[in-house]
């Protein structure tokens, strides 16, 4: 290769006159245009973040957008549901036999338990009436609203789902959300709370979110009261925190919402008795004042399809 061959020659295959130093009008204008466009888009994003984060000025617009997108999300889900169900069916075949045996034994056990429970419930109702007892809110006081899950958590950090019901159905921020099939007695198991609601769509912060915490108690020992929150490791394990070392908590105990009584805004928004999970491990350590209790949630947060929102009764 000749020593005097220029880059231009190498690229274009022929010699080209060098442009004046002030040249490159087309590439310069294109570069300026490019920078302006990306600058404006970044600026628009920052403005959106600021407005959306600091005020509710864009909520109406966002609600309309979410409502417009809702039919597409439902349609996509319906179209793909048969395929998903087929995969689920094949997956279920693998452990169907052993699960069937286990469930039969469980049914027999629960039937005898049910007879005892029904008697206790009747007695409880009569005694509450007789005493004019005002306890924590119960599930029966809330109006259930069924909703489909439109969007599951979008990434590892995100611990929220979007559901197909909103303020039009009476849902308000703070409404408690349960999974219809998660718990026993038809109560459902706790999923989380509504943290944002627009006309026909709402966002639910899951119990596995770092900012979620619920006062909970042990079903077999209601003297045990602690706070259920996300564990530091895997998102499918919760922690029952703040339980004193003296309290008796056993493995496989069912943990339910405590629904503590409070005054005014401090009144618990969680009705008492919503199942959360079962104790998977319990230990004590000298370094901590409280027990280390791990709880396995009854809800599979990774595959929520439908939920029930408990709409609170209107305050007088």
């Amino acid at each position, binding site marked *: 290769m000749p020593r005097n061959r*220029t*880059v*231009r020659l190498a*690229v274009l295959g022929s010699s*080209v006159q060098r442009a004046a130093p002030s040249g*490159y009008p*087309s*590439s310069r204008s*294109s570069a300026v*245009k*490019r920078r302006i*466009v*990306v600058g404006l*888009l*970044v600026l*628009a*994003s*920052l403005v*959106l*973040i*600021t*407005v*959306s*984060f600091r005020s509710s000025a*864009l909520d109406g617009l*966002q609600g309309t*957008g*979410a409502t417009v*997108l809702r039919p*597409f*999300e*439902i349609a*996509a*889900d319906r179209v*793909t549901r048969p395929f*998903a169900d087929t995969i689920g069916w094949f997956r279920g075949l693998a452990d169907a036999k052993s699960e069937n045996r286990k469930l039969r034994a469980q049914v027999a056990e629960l039937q005898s338990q049910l007879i005892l429970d029904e008697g206790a419930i009747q007695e409880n109702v009569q005694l509450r009436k007789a005493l004019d007892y005002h306890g924590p809110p119960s599930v029966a006081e809330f109006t259930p609203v069924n909703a489909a899950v*439109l*969007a*599951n*958590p*979008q*990434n*590892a*950090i*995100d611990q*929220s789902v*979007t559901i197909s019901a909103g303020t039009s159905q009476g849902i308000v921020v703070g409404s408690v959300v349960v999974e219809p099939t998660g718990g026993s007695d038809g109560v459902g198991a706790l999923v989380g709370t509504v943290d*944002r609601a*627009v006309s026909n*769509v*709402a*966002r639910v912060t899951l119990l596995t*979110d*770092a*900012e979620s915490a619920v006062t909970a108690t042990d079903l077999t020992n209601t003297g045990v009261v602690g706070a259920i929150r996300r564990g*530091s490791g895997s*998102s499918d394990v919760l922690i029952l925190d703040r339980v004193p070392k003296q309290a008796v908590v056993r493995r496989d105990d069912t943990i339910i919402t405590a629904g503590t009584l409070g005054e005014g805004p401090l009144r618990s928004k969680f009705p008492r008795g919503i199942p959360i999970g079962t104790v998977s491990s319990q230990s004590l350590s000298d370094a901590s004042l409280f027990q280390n209790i791990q709880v396995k949630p009854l809800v599979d947060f*990774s*595959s929520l*399809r439908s939920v029930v929102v408990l709409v609170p009764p209107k305050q007088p």
Partner: protein
Amino acid sequence: MDALKAAVILFVAAILQLSVLTEYQPFRTGSVVLVALLAVALLRGSVFGAVAGFLTGLMLDTATLGTLGVTSLLLTVAGFWIGRYGETTARDRFHAPYVSVAVVTVLYVVGELLLQFMLGEPAPAALAMHGLPGALLLNLVLTLPVYAVIRRLFPPLELGDRVREVRLLG
């Protein structure tokens, strides 16, 4: 015409991502939207990529009732940067989409963590980093079919359209 095609592709990818794919745990870490956007940006340039990223992010934030602008900002930067890479050095290199997806997947997770942290939202870095290898792998696996489809829909531009953007030195 390209804008319409890109809008349809990214809309379908976003709807699939939102309501179908994220039902399965592995797809919570990977993102078909990100892969599709990077493929479009790589083939159509920085401005196209940035605008597509902004609008796709806006749609995702709207649908999930998230803080508007967060995903837009991340996808705008991702689309612009990969578009620029496509305009300059990537050309028709086989590895370009894979390199783009790998680098942007890592930077996207870091950027998202940073934004969450700056907004005072929970930003569990350990959790995000724990899911990163899975995200990387899944996105790279998705790159092959997604890029093949998008390349078919967006044939590479003529050489003349691209070299306009390159400043000759020497």
